């Protein structure tokens, strides 16, 4: 990430973007007082160019381009350790969700295809079967991402331990599942859901 000097003014601080993040995440960005506890406990912080606390700091200064230009938000695994431990009740995990959505919508440079692909396939599976069908998820992911042999040797081990089912079992109440998906889609169209 660039170490370029920040020119701070009312024009360069995009407060509207921050407000959007706050509205989507339902939490305050300004509340963060930079204690660093989120980054201290984050299991993915070592992979991020901006650890969670710095993401908050950049948001406070309205520097969202710097946040979205990096991959940090896509490394977040939503474990919510940050949210659980924040001393000042900032829901950082929700902010990460909001940032990922805004990044996706803005078609930003940080569209990390594998993460997005995995998310998409995960949800497609749920929609089709009503529950997760891991075998299909892994197979389709490998095909679509072009890494045909990825983690292939793990398969037999997981099957032997009963962790991976060869055949799917479908939910009995598929119409209810479909209702959930359509409702969320409508909400997203209205902009009231992530």
């Amino acid at each position: 990430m660039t170490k370029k000097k920040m020119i701070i003014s009312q024009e360069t601080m995009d407060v509207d973007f921050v407000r959007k993040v706050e509205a989507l995440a339902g939490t305050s960005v300004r509340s963060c007082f930079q204690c660093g506890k989120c980054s201290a406990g984050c299991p993915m912080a070592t992979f991020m160019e901006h650890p969670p606390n710095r993401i908050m700091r950049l948001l406070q200064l309205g520097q969202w381009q710097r946040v979205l230009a990096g991959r940090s938000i896509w490394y977040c695994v939503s474990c919510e350790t940050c949210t659980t431990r924040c001393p000042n009740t900032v829901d950082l995990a929700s902010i990460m969700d909001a940032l990922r959505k805004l990044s996706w919508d803005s078609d930003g440079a940080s569209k990390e295809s594998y993460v997005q692909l995995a998310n998409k396939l995960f949800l497609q599976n749920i929609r089709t079967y009503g529950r997760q069908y891991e075998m299909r998820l892994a197979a389709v992911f490998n095909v679509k991402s072009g890494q045909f042999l990825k983690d292939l040797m793990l398969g037999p081990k997981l099957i032997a331990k009963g962790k991976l089912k060869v055949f799917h079992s479908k939910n009995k109440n598929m119409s209810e599942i479909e209702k959930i998906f359509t409702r969320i889609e409508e909400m997203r169209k209205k902009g009231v859901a992530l």
Partner: protein
Amino acid sequence: MSRIGVFICHCGENISRTVDVERVAEEVGRLPGVAFSTDYKYMCSDPGQTLVKKAIQEQKLSHVVVAACSPRMHEKTFRKAVEAAGLNPFLCEMANIREHCSWVHENREEATVKAIDIVGMMVERVKKNRILPTITVPVTKRALVIGGGIAGIQAALDIADCGHEVILVEREPSIGGHMAQLSETFPTLDCSQCIMTPKMVDVANHPKIKLYTYSEIELVEGYIGNFQVTIKKKARSVDEDKCTGCGVCMTKCPQKKIPNKFDQNIGMRTAIYVPFPQAVPNTPVIDRDNCTWFKTGKCGVCQKVCGPGAIDFEQQDTLIVEAVGAIVVSTGFDLYTIAEKPKGSPIKGYGEFGHGKIPDVIDGMTFERLASASGPTGGKILRPSDGKEPKQIVFIQCVGSRAREKGISYCSKVCCMYTAKHTMLYHHKVHDGQAYVFFMDARTPGKSYDEFWRRSIEEEEAVYIRGMVSRLYQKGDKIVVMGNDISVGVQVEIEADMVVLATAIQPQKGADALAQKLGISYDKYHFYSEAHAKLRPVECATAGIYLAGACQGPKDIPETVSQASAAAAKVMTLFSRDQMEREPIVARVREAGCVGCFACKKVCAYGAVEEKEIRDRQGNLIKIVAYVNPGVCAGCGTCQATCPSKSVELDGYTDEQIIAMIEAL
């Protein structure tokens, strides 16, 4: 023959860990004159003291030596215990075998031998101790308060409300001090004037308070309970009794362009002026340096328009002597000079911030005057350079404070809070503006303080940037602020319309000179020193002088008011008795040997040495000798060391005693 009792304390393990206390007790017990010696785990505890008392009665002891900690710790404790058992308290001495022995040694054998020596010396010394009677001195129940800021006002009101007379001396033409200059106060944002002026009026109207404004302390003589203070009342050129405070003189004065110090020199005043509309007393002063009459001998407009004829160009400075029993010093603070290194001071300036060169770089107090409804802009935040409203304003904290390189290493304590307040005041007055704050740490201990600071960020939208500013420079009509956000780790640049520097708090100029007049001590920054940082925070080491407010160290208003009331309580404790008792460790002059050279008088830091005439029965003067006033003497012993004829002795520390101690080694 003396019957000395020696009591060796283990101090838990503090002493017994390195000193074989039982052996000390045994060996000391064999010394000539020692009738009884024992050891105990905690001599200062209730059973320990009972042990001492019982031994005095049962063993008919004549003197007591307690071998334990420093006399600074427990001398009083044991002297009290000895007194309770019927002995004169000054026949008890402490042998310090903790700080001087066990704490500083590791070898048990050597430490034990040293402890035996220390105790042996004190045994020889205590044999020569005299019975000393307690000294009583009368108390004048009037108090002097120096400085009429919020500290002085609070202390004066508290003492006066208790029924004692108070003399309040203020250097400026009005009381009120710095608090009167403030716009709003943290953490409640109530208007400073609104809470201040009623107290100022109370002072003016209080029957027990005598107010001397535009006056300074010239000389302080005497001692606790009996001070004589000479006050210089500077010529006001206006007769206070005749003046009605109508203000016509000020409207007619042709000199209208004099920078008003009260408005931090951004507002103007006339040559005859009151510093601010709510001034107490509301009597103007003629500034003789800027008055046309005093410069050229012409004009005199004020005199012509004054109905009651109060203008008096001939008025002179007058000296007034007041007798008081206690003094409260509340001279307050001054702000750090930012731009250049003040002459003769070890403290450096901040050339890199351009204060004084860039007109829109101001200090916090100037911002207070801009934000104040009674200030030069009527409460509008406007730039000094062109009168425009600044849309981007930068505040920089710790300017001077915590900057060892500049000569100040302390934290000024109030800047974090007042800067948070400034961002709020700015946000309330300039809705489309943005405030930025560069800070190192936010130090906000205090009731509702941290919440206040967080509010400035979370609700009032101030942007705080952690990191110090390197430099400020003018670019067109903007000021470029070069900083660094250490949370992100990148350089930050802001083009600001105005910059406010939270400058360090320093003691009032001339604080050292006043301290020398009062005989009180001060630190390297000239803040006055309290007697004990924790347990005697409002008293000076010099008896009868008390401290209140920022003259002792940076303080906010609540803390200043608390300290002022505490100082007042100490004064009232002193005034609760007609006579006061003093420890009789004082110097005595052997008149037969004194030749009247008065070398002792020259070295006495407390002014305790007086001249005394010796006359025969016919009244013929034989000689003049030195006399030490026991009420004033602090028992420092300097006179004893100085006297060329060895005619001064400090009770409890006589030459005879010291020699006996050396011989015991």
